């Protein structure tokens, strides 16, 4: 989060859950991989935009937030299994007391943090409970 250039490079995949898919074995990769770990040289990688639906595998509640996140605490950080099979870590928007393992979630576009009052605003993907 601290580096503007690093964030910039990954911007497309953060905004749109853009990853890759191996046509050979059917595996999906997020963040995107240009090389299939299963098929090695015979893998056929293509661009893939994830649907943004999945479920919570496990989660933790962050009560003391890092710089740029102070206003958001307490918040839930979760490991999410996307429906295509890829695993990712993301923040879940909503009441931390109402989170549970196996909860269905869908992606939304939110502010991830900001570099103080003068710095860049970082946008990207978070998740919300899919029901309601």
């Amino acid at each position, binding site marked *: 989060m601290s580096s503007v250039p690093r964030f910039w490079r990954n911007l497309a995949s953060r905004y749109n859950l853009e990853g890759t898919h191996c046509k050979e074995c059917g595996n999906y990769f997020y963040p995107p991989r240009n090389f299939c770990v299963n098929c090695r040289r015979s893998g056929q990688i293509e661009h893939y935009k994830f649907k943004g639906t999945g479920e919570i595998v496990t989660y933790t509640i962050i009560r003391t937030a890092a710089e740029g996140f102070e206003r958001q605490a307490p918040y839930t950080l979760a490991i999410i299994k996307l429906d295509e099979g890829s695993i990712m870590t993301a923040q879940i928007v909503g009441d931390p007391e109402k989170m549970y393992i196996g909860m269905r979630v869908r992606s939304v576009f939110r502010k991830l943090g900001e570099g103080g009052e003068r710095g860049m*605003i970082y946008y990207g993907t978070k998740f919300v409970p899919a029901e309601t």
Partner: protein
Amino acid sequence: MKRLGTDALKQSKTGENMTIGIVSYGAYIPRYRIKLEEIARLWGDDAEALKNGLMVDEKSVPDIDEDTATIAVEAARSAMARSEINPHRIGAVYTGSESHPYAVKPTSTIVAQAIGATPEMTAADFEFACKAGTAAVQACMGLVGSQMIDLGMAIGADVSQGAPSDALEYTAAAGGVACIIGRKEDELAAIIEATYSYTTDTPDFWRREGMPYPEHGGRFTGEPGYFKHVINGAKGLLKKLGTKPEDYDYAVFHQPNGKFPSKVAKMLGFTTPQIAPGLVVPKIGNTYSGSCLMGIAATLDEANPGDRIFATAFGSGAGADAFSITVTDKIKEIRNRAPKVSELIKNPIYIDYARYAKHKGKIRLG
């Protein structure tokens, strides 16, 4: 009710023999709400008098991590979901707001990237108080009509601020609407037959660079601001088209509160049933640049093919943009693919003033 056939519509186009209209639309309203009673409780105001005077019961509040850019993106993605068009066909993204997150750096590039429309396209942000979104619609109509672009996306979105205890605090809300403007007749969910604007230099409401909250000319700004411009804008379009209020099934007017659009509709000769589907302000408050477009979206959610909608947006400063719209058969195909305005209004999460102050950044940390 006067019905126009496709041939008649073709003769009343803004351009020559060109049909321009709405290919798709999408709305977004944050989940959180604060009731007017809760704000009035804090300041010791009479809640019932305020609710009756403003005709607003509660207003939407953005989440801590929501701003004009995130709201614009959610609305834009809903519009994309409804239309199923290839994002690379969008040649322009224009976002109108008075609360762009950056002073310098466009909101529209964030939206364009988030819907996958970049990089072969143009983008810019618009500002004109509450009518920046409809100004963006007009710009897209021009670019689409002149064939400079295939499709254009116009957005009105805001996370409005009212200073604590200021009258504006009771209605300043958050929300946004995106419209995809196109010209291929078989793609249009609604045809925009014509638009007309009325603009003067009127200092009824303003905010200086770097100031967190707007200033306004007090409670008597309605007559020279809202009413004068909305009435002249609306009358100008009716005259241009030779139509009358009774030719329309629905009407939408900028809704800073419930009272103004109800009053202006009556003054112009529109009825309560005509404005009912689009009058969403009592449950969500004033979404500023989203306001008139939210009313149009709510009306498109319910209208039938062939129905005509009259709409007039207002922006302080001041100006009005009026539109005459006819819904096509396509509306039934697209509208269920994304949440309707009535669905976005459902299931609110009510918060108290302390939580509201945290959400709106009224408590400054550090």
